[in-house]
């Protein structure tokens, strides 16, 4: 951090750095407790609630919000929407960091983290949805690393290697879309095996499709949302093309998000109809379900539509933030809030402060690494040596 502060000429003790520092210290302390005393003293997990915040948020939300990488690169390289090119690198970087942090968080959650490669090299349990999740996340992390690497190689000045990887762009993009389709959906499919534990309004045979479609929505919204934040804090790192194109990215992605949200709303309603779950809507869980469906799917769909019609960038940004919140809510509903709904209140799960602190710790690491990279590598601008090759 000291280097960065020096290079950017800013003071080290900014409010952000102080808060980040406190979270990092706290996280380090909890890390020590986790790996010396186990999950018991650190988490509120129990035999009834084996998965908590670290799976519900760090894994499920983390992967969904990192979907911007595959959505943007597919839009630009496969669907030929060249005007979104400036959004590809930031989205890929966020995706790469997002997945890397998911894996980092998993190391806290699983009992014996060094055995994480076991499903592939020691004993392959191919009947498990988790096997598919693991395989795809591992492969996709590799793909994202390769997709991100040209920026790092340009920074390091390794031209030959950079050009070699750059030639693989299309193949990597297609591979990325295939893998994302598979693991985004199989994160939802993880819960297919437990129909007796997940509330019927959230349980559906369509869970994998819901997760995949909502991941596209998450990806589109994150690009807009993050774009707004990045523009606020790092506009000195942007070149003219980036600044000129970013508004059309927000408008284009917002329009797409509005359409996908509309489709998502329709298939969610179809899901209720197929299982004939209408009567649950009149219960407490039903009202909560409607809050999610109307407040966090239908509402942002309209907000995006209005924003598109009026070319209102501010509205687009707010709609994006609201949608991201809706995705967080959906993943927490499926994994924690509507899961184990049959249990009495005293057997339900509420995360401990130490679990929350590790989640914040992981997010903070993500932000710091993002800042480190964006202030050094050609993410928000084109490297002068490679302008023609894009």
């Amino acid at each position, binding site marked *: 951090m000291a280097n960065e502060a020096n290079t950017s000429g800013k003071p080290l003790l900014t409010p952000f750095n102080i808060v980040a520092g406190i979270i990092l210290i706290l996280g380090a302390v909890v890390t020590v407790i*986790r*790996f*010396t*005393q*186990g*999950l*018991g003293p650190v988490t509120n*997990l129990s*035999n*009834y609630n*084996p*998965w908590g915040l670290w799976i519900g948020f760090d894994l499920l939300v983390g992967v969904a919000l990192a979907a911007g990488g595959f959505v943007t690169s*597919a839009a630009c*390289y*496969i*669907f*030929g929407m060249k005007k979104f090119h400036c959004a590809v690198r930031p989205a890929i970087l966020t995706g790469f960091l997002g997945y890397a942090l998911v894996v980092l968080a998993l190391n806290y*959650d*699983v*009992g*014996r*983290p060094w*055995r*994480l490669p*076991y*499903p*592939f*090299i*020691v*004993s*392959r*349990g*191919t*009947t*498990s*949805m*988790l*096997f*598919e999740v*693991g*395989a795809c996340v591992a492969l996709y992390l590799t793909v994202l690393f390769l997709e991100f690497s040209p920026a790092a190689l340009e920074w390091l000045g390794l031209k030959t290697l950079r050009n070699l990887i750059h030639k693989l762009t299309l193949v990597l*993009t*297609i591979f990325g*879309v*295939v893998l994302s*389709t*598979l693991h985004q*959906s*199989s994160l939802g*499919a*993880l*819960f*297919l*095996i*437990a*129909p*007796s*534990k997940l509330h019927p309004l959230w349980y559906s*045979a369509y869970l*994998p499709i819901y997760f995949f479609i909502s991941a596209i929505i998450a990806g589109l919204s994150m690009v807009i949302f993050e774009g707004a934040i990045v523009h606020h804090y790092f506009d000195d790192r942007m070149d003219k093309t980036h600044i000129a194109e970013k508004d059309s990215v927000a408008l284009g992605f917002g329009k797409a998000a509005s359409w996908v949200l509309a489709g998502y709303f329709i298939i969610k309603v179809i899901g209720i109809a197929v299982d004939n779950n209408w009567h649950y809507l009149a219960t407490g869980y039903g009202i909560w379900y409607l809050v999610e469906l109307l407040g966090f799917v239908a509402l942002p769909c309209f907000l995006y539509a209005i924003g598109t019609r009026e070319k209102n960038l501010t509205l687009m940004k707010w709609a994006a933030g609201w949608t991201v919140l809706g995705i967080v809510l959906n993943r927490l509903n499926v994994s924690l809030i509507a899961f184990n709904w049959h249990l009495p209140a005293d057997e339900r799960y509420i995360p401990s402060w130490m679990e929350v602190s590790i989640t914040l710790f992981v997010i903070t690491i993500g932000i710091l690494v993002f800042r480190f990279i964006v202030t050094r590598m050609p993410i928000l601008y084109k490297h002068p040596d490679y302008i023609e090759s894009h």
Partner: protein
Amino acid sequence: MSITRRKFLGWMGAASAAAVAGKTAKAATNKEFPGYPQGLGVLFDVTRCIGCRRCEEACNEVNELPPPEIPFKELSVMDNKRRTDADHFTVVNSYNIPERKIGSVFRKIQCNHCLEPACASACFVKALKKTETGAVVYDASVCVGCRYCMIACPFEIPAYEYDEPLTPRIRKCTMCAPRVADGLLPGCVASCPTEALTFGKRDGLLKIARKRIQKHPDRYIDHIYGEREMGGTSWLYISDVPFSKIGLREDLGTKPAPEFTAGALGAVPMVVGLWPVLLTGIYAINKRKEKIAAGEQADAVAAAVEKANETAANNLAAAMETAEKEKTSAVEKAVKKALEEAAKREEPTEASEKDDTREDA
């Protein structure tokens, strides 16, 4: 089915999660797995259980679990709802059923050893396995500790060593597989003083259960819990009170757990196979569109340039013509003017001459 094929399939699995998806988590077919023919099980008769907790004690000893905080002789613990945990592979709970004459009903719970276990299907390292003898056993040497088996189990049985920092295991009843292999009865069965527990082949246990129900139709509920629940379990229950009143869920259905994920797993190879084709197709279409657009643009530009050139040439020609005309007319004008001027210059001379002549005249 030879081992080599299995091994081959395993490798395929490593290369692509898709390839073997349908192997054990069967897709929708008319095939049904009725359990291993030699599969063993235990029949628990609720009407015979007196709630002495001897089975709990025996289980504790046989599995070398830590000594209990409250001794097994203390029976009041049964009044609280207890579940299996890392130190208790079986628990007996007491249920108060007012309609029942004798008062409390006791229900023992432990792993039900499903015929097609959700836990084994969910395990991504095959740490949990259904053996041909009927037991669902656990191998800690490959377990990652992800706890997905605990999410998957509809009976909420597997427990986790939450206080082990680096070597936590999943803990659950093994149906005393090691003892049974030595020809012994499971600990709980051997210790039961009232024969509430009967150990034997599952097929035989079903017959015994049916016989008891037939013999005392007024006493038993006409249902063997575990015969078909979640595709069938090796542990079976018969009771004189509704199962849902003694903590055995009756809303689980009869579908084996692997079938819930079979559809999603079955879709994987289709995505792997078709997505690249579709995406490359979309890419190719866009590329072609771009090419055609570029071609059309080039043509349009060429045509425009040609037209512009033509117009320019025409304009030039016209301009040249005009210029020529102007030049000619200018020359003509100039000549005319010159002539006129010359004529003018001559005229006054003539006139003066005339004047002169007039004067002269």
